[in-house]
């Protein structure tokens, strides 16, 4: 024989001659998971055992083998030292794809020709799930970098804001009490500078109007602060500008985090929101690790410091970790919070498992369940527990149990 085509298919590896006859074959085991694994390896360019066996058997009779994949052909040439040719697609490949059902039945892979397609669907689904998972599990590391950046930006912004208020306070000390928001404060310093520039139009341009604006102008006029020369003011303005840039960057990251979490962990996002979910992933060190934690661990993630302190000093162990940041807990009365955080942790743990392992989306249902459970807790524990003796003493013991 001059040439034989080596055609890889869902049913196994086939050797096909010029007249489109299947002259030999190495059939795959009929296990979709194993087939998926083989196909993934073929796609990555390897020569699977079946192909190797087949070629070894036929090499005496055949001068050259035709492949549909360059990488597989190159591998066959290297490891088996046979002559190869690449044809994308090959005529034999076309023949196999056109008659897949019949061929699969003829080589004993399935009983009825039609059956091969349900195997094919199963294998495709497994492969696709694996790939979706692999793609997501890499991106969880980006989630971690991004959420850590957000937290660090917070720290930087706090430092910058403190310095900015103190410095500008030399010139206009009364403003700090009037303007709580660091963002607004930085905007006023950057855009207006010296307090003599504070007037109603200018303030309105910056989005401050009404009573607040009138107060500012009035106080600016009668301020007890000292003068700043232009150079000093410009230096301070560079600092306030830097604050604004950091703030903008933070907003941008928070925005991106929404999309990123939608990709990486949509179920967890539905339960906890994007940032809290990201913090849980970061604390665990990755989505897959988070998905292995029991709910009780998820509940105290982020409370490690307090946990150590309690171990050392014997004070009450912490009831909740970072999960306590969830808005549903903040809305609830104090005595319900422990119970809610337990339910929340349980749902978050389920969500993380689905995201890490199956890739399906049931976020809406998880969220609805969670809200239902929380309203049940609200009903059942409407009033604060009436056991005043609980609050006596060191605060240890059963009182803290939720």
């Amino acid at each position, binding site marked *: 024989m001059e040439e034989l085509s080596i055609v890889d298919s869902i049913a196994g590896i086939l050797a096909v001659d010029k007249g489109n006859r299947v002259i030999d074959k190495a059939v795959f085991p009929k296990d979709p998971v194993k087939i998926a694994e083989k196909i993934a390896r073929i796609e990555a360019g390897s020569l699977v055992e079946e192909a190797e066996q087949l070629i070894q058997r036929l090499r005496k009779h055949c001068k050259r083998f035709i492949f549909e994949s360059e990488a597989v052909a190159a591998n066959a040439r290297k490891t088996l030292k046979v002559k190869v040719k690449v044809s994308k697609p090959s005529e034999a490949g076309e023949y196999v794809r056109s008659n897949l059902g019949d061929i699969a039945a003829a080589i004993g892979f399935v009983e009825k020709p039609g059956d091969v397609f349900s195997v094919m669907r199963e294998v495709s689904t497994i492969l696709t799930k694996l790939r*979706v998972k692999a793609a997501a599990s890499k991106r969880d590391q980006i989630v971690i970098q991004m959420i850590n950046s957000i937290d660090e930006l917070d720290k930087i912004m706090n430092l910058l804001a403190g310095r900015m208020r103190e410095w500008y306070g030399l010139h206009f000390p009364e403003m700090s009490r009037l303007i709580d928001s660091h963002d607004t404060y930085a905007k006023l310093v950057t855009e207006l500078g010296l307090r003599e520039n504070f007037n109603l139009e200018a303030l309105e341009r910056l989005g401050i109007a009404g009573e607040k604006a009138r107060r500012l102008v009035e106080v600016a006029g009668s301020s007890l602060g000292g003068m700043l020369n232009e150079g000093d003011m410009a230096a301070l303005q560079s600092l306030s500008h830097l604050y604004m840039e950091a703030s903008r960057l933070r907003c941008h990251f928070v925005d991106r985090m929404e999309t990123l979490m939608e990709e990486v962990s949509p179920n967890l996002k539905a339960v906890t929101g994007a940032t809290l979910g990201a913090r849980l992933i970061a604390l665990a060190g990755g989505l897959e690790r988070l998905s292995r934690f029991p709910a009780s661990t998820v509940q105290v993630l982020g409370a490690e410091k307090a946990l150590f302190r309690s171990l050392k000093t014997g004070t009450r162990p912490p009831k909740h970790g970072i999960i306590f940041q969830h808005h549903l807990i903040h809305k609830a009365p104090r005595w319900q919070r422990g119970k809610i955080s337990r339910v929340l942790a349980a749902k978050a743990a389920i969500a993380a498992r689905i995201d890490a392992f199956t890739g399906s989306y049931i976020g809406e249902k998880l969220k609805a369940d969670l809200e239902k459970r929380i309203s049940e807790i609200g009903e059942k524990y409407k009033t604060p527990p009436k056991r005043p003796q609980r609050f006596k003493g060191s605060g240890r013991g059963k009182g803290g149990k939720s």
Partner: protein
Amino acid sequence: MSRHRVVSHERIEGVFWVTQPDGTKKLATINLALGRSVYGEKILQFKGREYRLWDPYRSKLAAAIHRGLDSVPLWRGEKVLYLGAASGTTASHISDIIGLEGRIYCVEFSQRVMRELMGHVAAYRPNIIPILADARKPEDYRMTVERVDLIYCDIAQPEQAKILADNSDIFLKDGGWIMLAIKASSIDATKAPSEIFRREIATLENRGFLGLRQISLEPYDKAHLMVVAQYRRRSREE
């Protein structure tokens, strides 16, 4: 009893016109996944059958039918390769039309939308085969796709026509059909649509596609065109 009236489309088997109570006409297909809506489209019952409305603003294939594409190369039992299936809006209606004897291989390379396609659509439709892959590398999925009757392509990529032709050489039968949604602006934002359409169509003609028909999708989709053509396999010696 129903407030709707449903009649078959004049030319396309498996596609229906629904006249709504307010007199407006909408396209619909018979729902293969009972009770499940895919993208928020309305489900309605008529004479013991469940139909899903097919929104031309969400699906370019529906838009093309509204714009007068009256012979769609789609029928029961057909095998379809769909490039750029996204979350399955259009693919789900094709799945309705081809029925359980048909198969639709859905290639999509964004893992995010693939999750949706798998979880919300493929899970309930045994004729959908999800494939996470890049349509530019058809050899990657040569083992999980069979010879097909139609390739539907909507990937919003430069060189769409070339990608479609490469896939056709591997998977499309001689005499099979293609449908290509060309979005002018995403191919090259600086050129006028007409020139882009011309270039993509020239590629198709060079690669063995005959009887090209073009349908503008305005007003449902801006600067979009649906191209339908038939494939002639060239002999291998060429």
